[in-house]
């Protein structure tokens, strides 16, 4: 039975039907009766080329290979389903970025970087999307959960690994700051009339 089927077509059908990306090791299972095993990497390359210029493309992501619609076609296909993908607030995206680039991190770490409380909803939102999960606990008082991004996060962003994340902007070393401290003394001369600093400390926190 197997011998009558073109291995490349088998591969294609498997990838078109799969719900999740398929790893090369998984794809090998399709051919375990064939000796010698077919060159899967080569066939994947050929398939990718065959699908050039069509509405669907074969891509490699973190957990394997998958077919996906091309962005320029998806714009048209979106006419079929009014239901749009969820939009994420800046709070969610910043939390995600911190987890992605600084993982594993606790909620406290995220709050330190963002300078504000992180709502539990933000974390839950990302967990429910399957983009982050708890990978352990930090051995500090309270044993806070350590969050990291998942394979599914990379898959959904079309990335093969964390190294493919957009590079971070360089930040200057704060040591550089010290070089400027000599001039900064001038700053101490200012004195503003009606400095609201005086007004504020007594202000009650309205919380």
């Amino acid at each position, binding site marked *: 039975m197997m011998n009558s089927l073109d291995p490349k077509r088998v591969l294609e059908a498997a990838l078109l*039907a799969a*719900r999740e990306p398929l790893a090369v090791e998984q794809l090998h299972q399709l051919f375990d009766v064939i000796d010698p095993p077919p060159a899967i990497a080569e066939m994947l390359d050929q398939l990718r080329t065959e699908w050039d210029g069509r509405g*669907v493309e074969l891509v490699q992501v973190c957990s394997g290979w*998958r*077919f*996906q*619609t091309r*962005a320029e076609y998806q714009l048209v296909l979106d006419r079929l389903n009014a239901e*749009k*993908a969820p939009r994420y607030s*800046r*709070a969610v*995206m*910043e939390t*995600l*970025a*911190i987890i992605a*680039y600084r993982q594993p991190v606790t909620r406290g770490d995220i709050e330190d*970087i*963002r*300078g*504000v*409380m992180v709502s539990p909803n933000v974390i839950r939102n990302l967990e429910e999307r399957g983009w982050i999960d708890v990978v352990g606990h930090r051995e500090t008082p309270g044993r806070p959960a350590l969050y990291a991004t998942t394979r599914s996060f990379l*898959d*959904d*962003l*079309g*990335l093969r690994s964390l190294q493919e*994340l*957009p590079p*971070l*902007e360089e*930040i*200057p070393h*704060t*040591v*550089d*700051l*010290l070089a*400027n*401290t*000599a*001039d*900064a*003394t001038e*700053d*101490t*001369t*200012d*004195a*503003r*009339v009606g*400095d*609201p600093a005086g007004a*504020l*400390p007594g*202000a009650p*926190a*309205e*919380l």
Partner: protein
Amino acid sequence: MTQQLDIPEMLESQAVASQPVARVRGEPLMQMPTDLYIPPDALEVILEHFEGPLDLLLYLIRKTNVDVLDIPMAALTLQYLEYVEAMRSKNLELAAEYLVMAAMLMEIKSRMLLPRPRAQGQDEGFDPRVELVRRLLEYEQMKAAAAELEALPRADREFRSVSVWIEQTLVKRLPQVEPQALVAAWQELLRQARVRAHHSVSRDELSVREYMAIVLRLLRGSGFREFGSLFDPSRGVAMLVVNFLAVLELAREGLIELSQARPYDPIYVKRVHDDDEQS
């Protein structure tokens, strides 16, 4: 994202006073920073717009185009407090972090007013702004990273994964059985029945039983068959013996009838009650 760009336009500049309102790095500041005046109805929008005190500070710094590595603390603190005070006076719910930051800014500012011991001028960490700048830069870095992530093509937004229908009804999937699974099943039987191990089946016994089934099949529906036709000499002597044992065993179990009219006549074999075969 576009909202961010719109906000400065909402904030009308307001020129005031002929004398400097402040001095920034020795330069007189002749007018309020352009973004200090907040139209009352814009306040809530602005509040929602900032993700927290660091975000607000970054906005103020980038807006006034000052060097983040050399922040004029007094001016920045002033602007920041103007915002916070405006929020407070509008009775808007103000996150505690904004007030904490206000206190921190004032602390830094006051520490910078203190005379610095010249001898320890090289002392790292003396500049009270270092920690604030570090935090601002780190936050700004993550804010930019978040924007980059947001811009990446994303599943179910810029693209969808393809998953065609799997037509399972066309092929009934049947369980696969490995020979070893039969042994496992048998062992389970043994364990349960607590039969002694010598109840095992040898290959010889098996082959006899295999031939018993073969002979019964040969006889199915064929009425009488000549004894010799039950044997296939091409399979070798060993198999012939096994075959013969199978026929004897079938006879012993009363499953077949052997008949012979006279000695040396052909022997005929017939299944017992072959007529009412159910299959």
